[in-house]
């Protein structure tokens, strides 16, 4: 049985301009010790999906429906007190910008001690010892001294390590990492990803990694879901997806990865257009306004998420054969995609 099972999740927010349907029918599952990558542009609903798992979207008064089964219980219908016991202790989360995610007025050690003592009734000195241990385990040098540092006294990479130490101090079953490297220097990004990988292997934590970077997914994840306009467009184990991606949007994402080994003539080709408004989602296939291959039915009906081959789900009106043919011709045009 899956560790976490999201079933037909819908999340919408009421705003001045109308109802924003941030997540519209997402189903995903995560097994223990696995890493699931959720990929998509800004506004694809990937962060909202992740935050809804731990109930963080309850605070801006989101309307939530569907089920999120964890440990035999539904997190969507769970009351706030029980959900709080799970949040931080069994499902922990780290965020994009570690500077703004740490409280500027509290010492980092205190912030981790607090996280421990919320869930476990341990004396302050025990919590402190465990905090220093956690700081050491994420590779922070001289953690005893760093315990008393303020966030602004640390570098971006160190801050994200603090966030990771805070998230993992209670040995959660699941770590949700919401674009953990986006705000970091390129040189630090790889270190942080390696750290997450190492801790996952050591502690057996399952990871949900949210990113817009397919390169990160290729390096880290076991399974991948590509999200667009609040929907999953394509979902598969990593090898299957990178072997033969079947959705035009995924092709677009792959084409926009810069490659040093690509010939100069093979320019980056970003996906034309911009992500749709989540207030007025396009009729039919949500991707059709930006899709170079729109088949006629895409204008009217939304395609279902269907199994194209075992374990490989795709939401597209094109036939499987047609998609294979298009991908092959794309690969012959752009050698970098091979």
């Amino acid at each position: 049985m899956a560790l976490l099972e999201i079933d037909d999740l819908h999340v919408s927010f009421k705003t001045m301009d109308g109802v924003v349907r941030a997540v519209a029918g997402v189903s995903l599952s995560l097994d223990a010790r696995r890493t699931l990558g959720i990929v998509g542009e800004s506004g694809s609903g990937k962060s909202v999906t992740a935050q809804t798992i731990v109930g963080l979207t309850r605070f801006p008064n989101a309307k939530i429906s569907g089920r999120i089964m964890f440990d035999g219980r539904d997190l969507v219908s769970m009351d706030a007190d029980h959900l709080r016991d799970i949040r931080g202790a069994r499902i922990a989360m780290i965020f994009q910008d570690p500077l703004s995610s740490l409280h500027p007025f509290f010492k980092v050690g205190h912030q981790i001690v607090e996280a421990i003592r919320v869930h476990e009734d341990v004396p302050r000195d025990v919590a402190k010892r465990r905090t220093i241990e956690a700081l050491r385990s994420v590779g922070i040098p001289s953690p005893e001294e760093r315990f008393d540092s303020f966030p602004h006294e640390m570098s971006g990479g160190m801050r994200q390590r603090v966030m990771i130490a805070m998230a993992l101090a209670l040995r959660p079953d699941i770590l949700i990492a919401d674009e953990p490297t986006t705000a970091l220097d390129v040189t630090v990004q790889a270190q942080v990803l390696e750290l997450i990988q190492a801790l996952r292997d050591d502690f057996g934590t399952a990871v949900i990694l949210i990113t817009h970077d397919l390169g990160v997914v290729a390096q880290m994840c076991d399974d991948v879901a590509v999200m667009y306009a609040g929907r999953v467009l394509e979902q598969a184990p990593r090898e299957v997806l990178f072997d033969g991606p079947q959705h035009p949007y995924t092709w677009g994402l792959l084409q926009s990865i810069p490659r040093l080994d690509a010939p100069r003539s093979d320019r980056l080709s970003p996906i034309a257009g911009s992500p749709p408004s989540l207030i007025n989602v396009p009729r039919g296939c949500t991707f059709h306004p930006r899709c170079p291959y729109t088949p006629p039915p895409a204008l009217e009906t939304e395609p279902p998420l269907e199994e194209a081959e075992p374990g490989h789900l795709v939401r597209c009106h094109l036939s499987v054969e047609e998609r294979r043919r298009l991908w092959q011709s794309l690969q012959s045009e752009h050698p970098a995609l091979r």
Partner: protein
Amino acid sequence: MGAYIVRRFLWAILLLLVVSFLTFVIFDVFPSADPAVLRAGRNATPALIHQIRINLGLNKPFYIQYWRYLKGLALHFDLGYSYYNSESVRSEIFSRLPATISLTVGAFIVWMLIGLPVGIVSAIRPRTLLDRTLMGGALVAISAPVYFIGLLALFLFANGTGLVNWFDGAGSYVPISQSPATWFGSLILPWFTLAAAFAAFYARMTRGNLIDTMGEDYIRTARAKGLRESLVIGKHGLRAALTPIVTMAGMDVGLLLGGAILTETVFNIPGVGRYAYEAITNSDLPAIQGTVLFGAFFIVFANLVVDILYAFLDPRVTYG
């Protein structure tokens, strides 16, 4: 930090010099009435007025008057003697200071006790009926002038003048050393009057700051830890939202210690503010100078205290 304080201190002295000079110039350029004539009283002979003018040094050019004044101030901390009744301005101000401090400190407590909770409640339930009612009331309290609220309070609640005789009215102030109970009773209306606009302003500031803070990423982190919402707001939220409020409170207290002119006048409280008001009416330059310098000193001093305090409240702030 030490060097910073010394530098700030030197700036403060320079600033006070400029303030006193400006007061002198303004008084010289726009003479409202001749102090010698006012002092001589009714039916004074020109000879008497001339004599007074010489005694007060008013016949000298103003820069010589200013130089004398500065010498007295620098050498003896002497604020001069009133043109009006020859009393020492320094002792006049110090004798009135307890009344002003009583008024300011009491009002400060009242406005913090009202303003912060109102702001917090409004911020937790934004755009609800409760929030709109509280903020609407705050807008009225900010807009109403102190003398209007003061007179209204006297008209409604004061012994003798009010519709209901609940509190002591104007002119009932006695020093705390004389009778603490009477002192307290006489200050209730002035405290609330002076605090009204401040409480309203602080409520709006607190609400705005707290709403902004609750949208910060570190609040999301606090929630993601599984922290109880009361702690998320009460600890993580308020810690950040109230820091600028503390700063502002320090400045406002400094400002009021220089004399709450309107409130002291409406309620006839013998404080520094009313002394300033009388000094202006009497064209009493030394008294005007004294109260202006005194007020300026408190403002500058409060600024310094607040800046130092801020370095302790916000670990990101350092002074080099």
